[in-house]
């Protein structure tokens, strides 16, 4: 993680200054300084990801590696925020108003984020499944000599792939178990129809009636920039943290298929008049536009690799549909190029999905830990209030 160097020095700076200042008064000024520094860090880091070079297509916007970078940034910001919040403070300081309201609200949002992480983890399993299907198709299409047998094989895998990608389009109602997906009367069964209905099983769900779009909406409630005398200091810090968390969760949901994303809002409460937020706003607009475009057609999530897979998949299905041995030369050549591209996408997925899954886990653990730590500090206050005899 490239951020760790800057991060550790940042934390170092805070603790040194905190120790100095504790000797004197003016802790509020120092707080403001910390906050400014934090804001700058956040702004810089997000600007960095936005400006990734475009010559490496697989580091493109919303690709697996881009999302990994985003999550790294999130983890960095989260650690700093927590440090500022907790370092050198006792329970009394973080329980006074308005923090007595803001902090429990933050913790509630963290819980929602945990559920979203679970949903994303399920979604990544689906993505992995798609990868496996694509690999079967590539295997078939790269066979030499290539004939109708392999063509049918590839088509079957590709059709399963496309069908799996659009899994969450009509999700939502409590479904039956998947017996009927397997009940093939051999009469009337199209041999090439997709057989892999198992992803409609319970493992896909976080819980019955859970909805990713509703969670995000709930998380955005009450995220307002602090006003007046509160505008500087800890309330502002918490606001920034809320914003980042909501934003990152939103990006994940837009990119990766998960339970019930219909009606995902494209508005997040990012204030327009603050200078460091325009990077976030820019990203939000860009992703929001893509989302609106694709939502009507039904889609598999904006993940770059999935989009590519879908496009190539559709095109190759057309190819296999019309293929007759030995096939027209230019069509075969065109298909070969696409197969090579698809193979590359699979390779990228193979390399990147594992680390991404681990990163989501890491985010999950980190949020859990931070929440516990904050709760612990709040409890220290309760514990230590018992007077000694």
């Amino acid at each position, binding site marked *: 993680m490239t951020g760790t160097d800057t991060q550790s020095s940042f934390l170092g700076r805070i603790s040194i200054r905190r120790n100095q200042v504790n000797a004197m008064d003016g802790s509020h000024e120092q707080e403001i300084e910390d906050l400014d520094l934090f804001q700058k860090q956040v702004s810089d880091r997000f600007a960095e990801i936005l400006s990734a070079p475009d010559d490496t297509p697989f580091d493109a916007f919303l690709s697996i590696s881009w999302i990994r970078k985003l999550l790294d940034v999130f983890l960095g910001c989260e650690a700093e925020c927590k440090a500022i919040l907790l370092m050198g403070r006792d329970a009394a300081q973080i329980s006074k108003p308005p923090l007595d309201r803001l902090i429990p609200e933050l913790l509630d949002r963290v819980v929602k984020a945990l559920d979203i992480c679970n949903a994303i983890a399920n979604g990544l399993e689906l993505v992995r499944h798609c990868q496996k299907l694509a690999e079967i198709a590539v295997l078939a299409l790269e066979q030499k000599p290539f004939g109708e047998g392999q063509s049918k094989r590839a088509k079957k895998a590709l059709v399963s792939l496309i069908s799996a990608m659009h899994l969450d389009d009509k999700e939502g109602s409590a479904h039956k178990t998947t017996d009927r997906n397997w009940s093939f009367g051999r009469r009337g069964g199209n041999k090439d129809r997709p*057989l892999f209905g*198992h992803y409609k099983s319970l493992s896909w769900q976080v819980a019955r009636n859970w909805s990713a779009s509703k969670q995000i909406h709930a998380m955005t409630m009450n995220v307002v920039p602090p006003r007046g005398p509160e505008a500087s200091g800890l309330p502002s810090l918490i606001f920034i943290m809320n914003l980042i968390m909501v934003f990152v969760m939103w990006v994940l949901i837009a990119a990766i298929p998960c339970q019930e994303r219909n009606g995902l809002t494209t508005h997040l409460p990012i204030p327009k008049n603050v200078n460091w937020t325009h990077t976030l706003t820019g990203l939000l607009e860009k992703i929001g536009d893509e989302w609106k475009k694709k939502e009507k057609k039904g889609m598999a999530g904006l993940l770059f690799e999935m989009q590519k897979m879908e496009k190539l998949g559709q095109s190759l299905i057309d190819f296999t549909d019309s293929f007759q041995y030995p096939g027209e030369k230019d069509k075969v050549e065109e298909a070969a190029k696409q197969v090579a591209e698809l193979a590359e996408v699979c390779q990228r997925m193979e390399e990147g999905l594992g680390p991404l899954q681990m990163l989501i886990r890491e985010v999950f653990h980190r949020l859990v830990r931070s929440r516990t730590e904050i*709760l612990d500090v709040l409890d220290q206050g*309760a514990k230590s209030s018992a007077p000694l005899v």
Partner: protein
Amino acid sequence: MDGCQSTIPTSEGDLHVVAAAHHIVKALGATKNLSDDLRKILIDLDAHLSMITSNTDSKGGRGFVNVEERLKQAERKILSWESDPRMIWDSGPREASKYLEAVDEIQTLVDGLQGLSVHENRKQKELIHHAMSVLQMAMSRLEEELIHILVQRRQQFDPKHMTSRSTQRDVVYDESFVSVEDEPTEETSSRNCSGDEIGEYIVDLIHADVIPDIKSIAKVMFTSNYGPEFCEAFIGVRKETLEQYFAIIDTEKLSIEDVLKLEWTSMSSKMNKWTWSMKIIVRVYLANLKGHDSWLLELGEAVAMGPHQPEKLLRLLDMYETLADLLRDIDTLFSEEAGSFVRLQFHELLESLGDSSIAAFEAFRVAISSNGSLYPFPGGGVHPLNKYVMNYIRMFSEYCNTLNLLLKNQHVDVADQVIEPDNGPNLSLSTSCPMACHLRSITSSLESNLHRKSQLYKNEALQHIFLMNNIHYMVQKVKGSELRLFFGDEWIRKHNGKFQQHAKNYERATWSSVICFLKDDNPGSSSLSKQTFKERCKGFSIAFEEVYKTQTSWCIPDPQLREDLRISTSLKVVLAYRTFLGRNSAHIENKCVKHTVEHVEKFLLDLFEGSPRSLRNSRRW
């Protein structure tokens, strides 16, 4: 099936035979009295023979006659099933094996044809192409058959049989797991689960007779490079199967948000139900373990991918350890290629089990610290959450090695961490091993939670009683088990101090105001005036009776602790009362001194029995 090459004539001798045959065929074809059929056969044969001889330009001749014939034959078999509505494997082992033979034949022919020469001629290409098409058809069919076999077996699982006993089991399990006595029963020990109870309704979900079928399908599919399809289908069905079982046993999936909102009682019953059903399934699968290693695969996969509910942790650890042992002895179930796939799956599974165990551990902590109560726990006794957690973590010591391995990379925030030097030569048992650190952080979360719960009491004295009881309970649990090796003496000493502090706080909160009435304002002077004495007596009586009324309904479960507190209280109160009465002995009349010292002593024994009493209406003199 031996190599195809031996049946394609390549030698000079063979070619002579072919030429001779061709000659004969031509001669026969010239006869006049041929039947139509025979004529057709001869024409066919002629064409083939011509082809063979015309191919002698390319590398010493190729004989495709046999190849094409064999291909046609195998194809016939496969096509005949395409239009058949029945499932092959339902129609008996003979049909199944004939089908597999046909597929095998085609694969062999393809191998042979592909290995023949570098200069591919048109005929050869056509044959290969044709064979591959037929092969694909067969593979598709085999996939369907495989799924059918697996699904069919699953449908024999009788849900009624399981659920009818579930409600019974619930009650038994509930009591024994969080028993008042706190005696470890069979149920609390994950390792000693008695197979008998569960054996009654173990349904052999994976019939032994099905496995050879699956193996044979796997072999054929892997040999033909259709391994990926086999794996996807196989894993898919098994995952789905497990989800179905869970659905049948009615374990509802809850989001983390939902779980945190649960009141303790419903959370507790859900946990119990879940653990019970998990046990059933794990035992069923593990019973088949010896011969059927592969079934552990999908079980593990399904479990690992599920929500990380804390109570799952022990099961995961069970599986992790079993799996780790297994990996040492795993032998090839399938062909080489399939075998390495299986091995890879096992390793991946082990990793994901490890991940899940860590996640479950974390979720356990979250669940503990977030478990909320709306109402104070009546009587101030030991809270069920406390019992549950302490009993649960007691079992962890069995998994010490595994947990240490899994947890060593986890960063632990240990605000209450007490560092202790190694206790002995065995490093893993020291109080500084990863598991010990995590256990302490768990109890720290528990403590914090208990503090929050104590705030629900309005009465400050009861808050202290509650905390005293619960911390004492925790210390007892640690001291009385292997946990003491992980927590260490320092922790025990510190927490002893804590509950003793709460005891003192209780005394102060309760009795200072009562004893106030008995205070000696002017040490040097003589006794109080009669009027003051009367008022003081009355005040003391009322205050004492109030305490009696309230605190007889409180509870201190541990007898030793109860005794200690009574003695300590008694010393203070009785002594003060006796002194007070003694100093003012001149004023004592029967009317104004409501209770004698002996009575007070006796009444104090009624406190903390958990049954409320009142002195108001009793005429105990």
